[in-house]
C-alpha cells in the first residue's frame, strides 16, 4: 500500500513532464496545419497508388482495396508518432547532450530515461488527439474508414508498439554520447523503421525470406502487429502470442536503454561533459 502510494506520486511527477510537452506542442499552431496538410497529401498519394494497383476487385496477398483504404490512413497517422518519437526522444537527447541540459537533468533526483519517455508520451498524446483525430475524421468523411476489429486489443497493441519504438529511439539517442554527431544514425533508423515496421507497405508484400527475417526483429512489433489486429487479420491465439512478444520486446529494449544509459553516463562523467 505504501509502495503503491509512492509509485503513484512518482508517476504523477512524470506525467507532468508529459503535460509540459503536450502544451508546448499545442503552442505551435501555424506549424500544425502545415504538417497536417503534408501528411494528408502522402496518405492521398498512397491511396491513389493502391487504387490503381488493386483495381477491379483484385487482391495482393490477402489485401483488397477496402483494406488498403484503412491501412494507408492508420499508417499515415502512425507516421506522426514515428516523427514525434525520433524528434522528441533521439534528437532531443542529442540536443540536450550538446547544450548541457543533460547535465542539469542529472542533478535532479529523476530518472532521465523516464523523463525522456514521458515527455515523448505527452507529444504522442498531442499527435493522436489533434493531428491523428483530424486526419482520420477527414478520411472517414472523404473516403471511408473501417473501424477497428477489436478497439481494446488494438489500443493495447499500439501502446506496446509505441513503447518498443520509444526503446529504440532512446538507444539511438544514446549514440550521441559515443559518436558526437549521430544525425546519420538517426536518419538511417527512422528510414528503416518506416520501411520495416509496415508504415509504407504491408510487410507480407516483401519477399518471403525478408518476411521470415523480420519475424525475429522488433520492427514489425511497432506497427504491423497493431494494424493487423485493427484489420482483424489475426486469430485470438495469434493476438495473445503477438501481445506477449510485443511486451517482451518492449521490456528488453527499455532494459537495454537503462543499462546502456548507465555506462554512457559513466563515460560522460569521466570525460567531463
Amino acid at each position: 500500500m505504501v509502495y503503491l502510494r509512492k509509485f503513484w506520486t512518482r508517476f504523477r511527477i512524470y506525467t507532468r513532464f508529459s503535460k509540459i510537452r503536450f502544451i508546448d506542442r499545442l503552442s505551435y499552431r501555424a506549424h500544425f496545419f502545415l504538417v497536417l496538410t503534408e501528411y494528408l497529401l502522402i496518405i492521398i498519394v498512397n491511396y491513389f497508388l493502391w487504387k490503381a494497383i488493386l483495381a477491379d476487385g483484385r487482391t495482393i496477398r490477402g489485401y483488397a482495396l477496402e483494406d488498403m483504404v484503412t491501412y494507408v490512413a492508420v499508417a499515415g497517422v502512425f507516421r506522426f508518432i514515428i516523427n514525434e518519437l525520433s524528434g522528441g526522444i533521439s534528437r532531443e537527447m542529442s540536443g540536450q547532450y550538446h547544450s548541457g541540459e543533460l547535465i542539469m537533468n542529472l542533478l535532479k533526483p529523476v530518472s532521465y530515461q523516464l523523463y525522456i519517455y514521458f515527455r515523448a508520451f505527452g507529444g504522442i498524446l498531442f499527435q493522436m488527439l489533434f493531428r491523428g483525430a483530424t486526419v482520420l475524421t477527414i478520411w472517414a468523411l472523404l473516403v471511408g474508414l473501417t473501424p477497428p476489429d477489436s478497439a481494446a486489443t488494438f489500443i493495447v497493441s499500439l501502446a506496446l508498439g509505441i513503447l518498443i519504438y520509444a526503446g529504440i529511439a532512446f538507444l539511438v539517442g544514446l549514440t550521441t554520447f559515443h559518436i558526437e554527431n549521430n544525425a546519420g544514425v538517426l536518419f538511417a533508423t527512422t528510414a528503416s523503421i518506416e520501411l520495416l515496421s509496415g508504415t509504407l507497405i504491408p510487410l507480407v508484400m516483401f519477399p518471403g525470406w525478408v518476411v521470415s527475417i523480420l519475424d525475429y526483429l522488433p520492427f514489425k512489433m511497432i506497427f504491423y502487429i497493431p494494424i493487423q489486429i485493427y484489420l482483424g487479420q489475426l486469430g485470438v491465439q495469434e493476438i495473445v502470442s503477438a501481445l506477449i512478444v510485443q511486451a517482451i520486446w518492449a521490456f528488453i529494449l527499455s532494459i537495454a536503454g537503462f543499462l546502456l544509459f548507465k555506462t554512457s553516463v559513466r563515460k560522460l562523467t569521466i570525460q567531463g561533459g
Partner: protein
Amino acid sequence: MALIAVENLTKSYKTFKRKEGLKGAFINLFKREYEFVQAVDNISFHVESGEILGYIGPNGAGKSTTIKILTGILTPTAGEVAVNGLVPYKRRQQHVKNIGVVFGQRTQLWWDIAVIEAFTLLRDIYEVSKTDFQAQLKKFDEVLGIGPLLHIPVRKLSLGQRVRCDIAASLLHNPPVVFLDEPTIGLDVAVKSNIREFIKEMNASLGTTMILTTHDLSDIEYLCQRSLIIDQGKIIFDGDLQQAKDELARQRKIQVDLYERVDIDSIRDQLKVAELEFAGQNDYSLTISFNKDEISAIDIIQKILDLLHPRDIKIEEPTIETVVKEIYEKRSL
C-alpha cells in the same frame, strides 16, 4: 566525521588533440593524439557540518571541476570523495536528493516552462509540502524579488533574473548541503547583498553546509570564516582570509607623486626604509612599503616633506583583493 571529505582528489581531462587545417583533419582520421589536462591535482580537505567554505582561485584553477565531482556529475581520476557518507558519482540519484546546486554559468531550470511551473515541479520531485512551499516562495520573493518573474518562461529571463530563480530553485527543498558555483554572477548590488544576508541566515538557522565559489571576494569576506585557494589544481591556502588580511595589514604602502624625477638611492638612505621603489612605469611617483610596527606613517611623511616637494601623498591599506593577489602570486605573507 566531516560532512564533506576530499582525500587526494585528482582529476585529469583527456582531450582529443585536433590538428589544424585540411591536412590535419586527414591525419586526425587515422591517428588520434590525446592531451591530458590536470584540472585538480591531489587535493585534500574537509568541511564540517554547518560550515561555509569559500573556494577561490584564478580562472581555470579547478574550482568548477571540484564542485562537479562533489555533485556527482564528474568521476574523479584518483582519490576519494564523500558527502554525507555517500560517494557522489557512485550514488548520484540518492546524493542529489540531499543537495542544492547553483552553477551561475548555466541554468538548472527546465528551459521551456514558466518559472512557477518549474518550482512546483521541483516541489513535487523533492516532496516539499504545500505549506512549506508557499512559505519558501514568500521568503524568496522578499529576498530575491522573484514574484514578478514567476510567470515568465525561463528562456526569456535576463541573466540576473535567471540566476535569482536558479538560487531559489536550488534552495527550495532546504537541502542540508549546498554548492554554489559563482552564484552572484550578473546580479545587481541590491540583490547581491540580499542574497548574502539570506545565505548567512540560512546557514545560521538551519546549519546548512555550503561551499561557495566566486570571483567576488567581498562575498567571501562577508560569508566565509574559512577559505581555500586553489591554483593550477593545487591548494595553496587553507585558512581565514580575514586573519591573513590583518596580518598583511601591518604592511602598508605610501605612494608619493612628484613633479620631477629624483634620485631614489639618496632618498632611501635618508629615509632609512628598505623598500622604496618607483611605482609602475612612472618615474614621477614612489611607493614606500613599511611595517607599521617599526615606523609610523607620520614619521615617513614628515621626512618626505623635508626632502621633497610632493604633488600628492596616498596611504594604502591592503584589501582582501591584495591579500588574495599576493597569494596567487605565491608571495609568502
